């Protein structure tokens, strides 16, 4: 049980992943890190099917995603996009309800189970009291939680987070990261793209380091985060020390 990427080539004009192969183990919390433009978001967008690979295959639990009905894949993988779109005039509860789309017919009629799942998801992200508010009226942190609740309602074994902390202040960053950890504890496999190496090291069970459209290192945070790696991948002189709170590797640039 895993997500398997087999020599993936995908990208945009002028940028393409160079035959990336990677296995993301079930029950891991895998975080992709790397400098800007290294292809980590492209890789995540390929897994989430926003980008079609020009070569290679994406397998989920050994089944090719392109060989399955889109709805079936949507019951396997959910996504918190990098830039979630806030639709006008939609309440929090309605938004979270869209997470049930893979289980509904084209008319989107809700079953009892749909309603219970939505309620439970709102409970987990602590938005139940705000469920009748418009999403557009929420603060940045609350919005992000609403979109996470949509993923929870989607009830998938795999959840993808594409730079979930960007544009959030430090409190809400940790709020979203903690939610991510909660989902992982509840048995979901989480794959995230993060910029902050110290945060990545604190939350990840597995790290994937990318550079120049390739995977250059895979492993446990303590093995991966070294001063040599930071210098080779990011081109910075930095000191690595144990985070005083968690003991995981933390980074300070010189």
């Amino acid at each position, binding site marked *: 049980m895993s997500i398997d990427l087999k020599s993936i080539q995908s990208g945009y004009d002028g940028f393409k992943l160079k035959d990336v192969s990677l296995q993301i183990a079930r029950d891991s919390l895998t975080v992709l890190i790397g400098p800007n433009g290294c292809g980590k978001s492209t890789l995540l967008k390929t897994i989430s099917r926003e980008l079609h690979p020009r070569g290679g295959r994406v397998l989920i639990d050994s089944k090719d995603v392109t060989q399955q009905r889109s709805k079936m894949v*949507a019951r396997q993988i959910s996504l918190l996009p990098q830039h979630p779109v806030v639709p006008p*005039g939609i309440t929090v509860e309605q938004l979270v309800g869209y997470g049930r*789309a*893979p289980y509904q017919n084209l*008319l*989107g009629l809700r079953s009892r189970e749909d309603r219970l799942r939505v309620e439970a998801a709102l409970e987990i992200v602590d938005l139940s009291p705000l469920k009748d508010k418009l999403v557009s009226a929420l603060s940045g942190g609350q919005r992000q939680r609403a979109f996470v609740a949509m993923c929870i309602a989607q009830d998938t074994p795999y959840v993808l987070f594409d730079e979930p902390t960007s544009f959030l202040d430090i409190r809400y960053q940790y709020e979203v990261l903690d939610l991510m950890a909660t989902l992982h504890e509840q048995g979901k496999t989480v794959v995230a793209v993060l910029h902050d190496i110290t945060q990545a090291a604190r939350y990840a069970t597995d790290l994937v380091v990318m550079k120049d459209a390739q995977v250059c290192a895979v492993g446990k945070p303590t093995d991966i985060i070294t001063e040599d790696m930071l210098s080779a991948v990011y081109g910075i002189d930095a000191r690595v020390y144990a985070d005083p709170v968690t003991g995981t590797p933390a980074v300070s640039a010189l």
Partner: protein
Amino acid sequence: MRHASSTRLIWTLLGLTFAAIAVFLWSLAAGAVRIPITTIINTLFDLDGPKQGFIINKSRLPRSLLAFCTGSSLALSGAIVQALLRNPLASPKIIGINSGAALGVLLTFIFAPTLDLNWLPVVAACGGILAAAAIFSVAEFAPVSPARLALVGIAIGMACDAAVDFILATSELYEVSAPLVWMTGSLWSRGWAHLNAVWPLLVGLSAITLLYSYRLDLIRLGTAQATSLGLNVRRERLALLALATLLAAISVSVVGVLGFVGLMAPHIARQMVGGTHRGLLPVAMLVGAILAMVADAAGRALFAPLEVSAGILTAMFGAPFFVFLLLSSFPSPIQ
């Protein structure tokens, strides 16, 4: 909330239905010849008492019904386009569908003036589809953001408008006077032939569009999110674009460029029942129908016996609304 919002939807729909009926009756009464409401009812239901068979049956009844159909279709089309482009300022007019249809119909007026009226919707639809196809082929072959797509649409619309202006400027006056009135969005001299040519199509397309309401909700979340929710975004977007194009182009073919109905109606509807398309679409249809009927009848009654085109009236009231939208939908310049 579920119950509260469905109750609200039902009451809104009921209220709008009554409003639509009232406006419909008023539109039969209004004009150069004012007809009392009892006379209208006598005529419609063939009761005893004073009747006005000729004016009502031959002129105002088909016109009002046509205004109803096209107003609601343009509103639907606008709601689709706004969801597809994720832009509250989008409308069929803004992405060039209307201008393409206008150009198609004008070319027909000039080069095939004897063409049967039944073909007019087909011609307009072709023009609109060509314009829309040009816009969306840009999107397919050079993927762009919805904002840029809207800009491409505006550019193509302008090109069509330029062609329309060129034809009008180089033609003899008598040749273009009829198209000119048509272009401003008038229902003047529209009759049963026009109505019969378009209503089955518009009703059918509207019904199909209503079945797409949930998919519109999902597509409104953006490509990444909609895909991860299991929607085949590419296919659904194409289908929805085709629906929006046909609804707008066919409407434009008989009533001309009825500006702003497609922009205003979805916004008013969103204010009334929120953003889920299951409620938004039917409410927008009724609002659009009411707007079109009011504009047509008011244009007939205001300066009777002169007529002001419904398109001119909707634009006159639509323009300030548009500015209001611009100001209120971008509360801060940094976004």
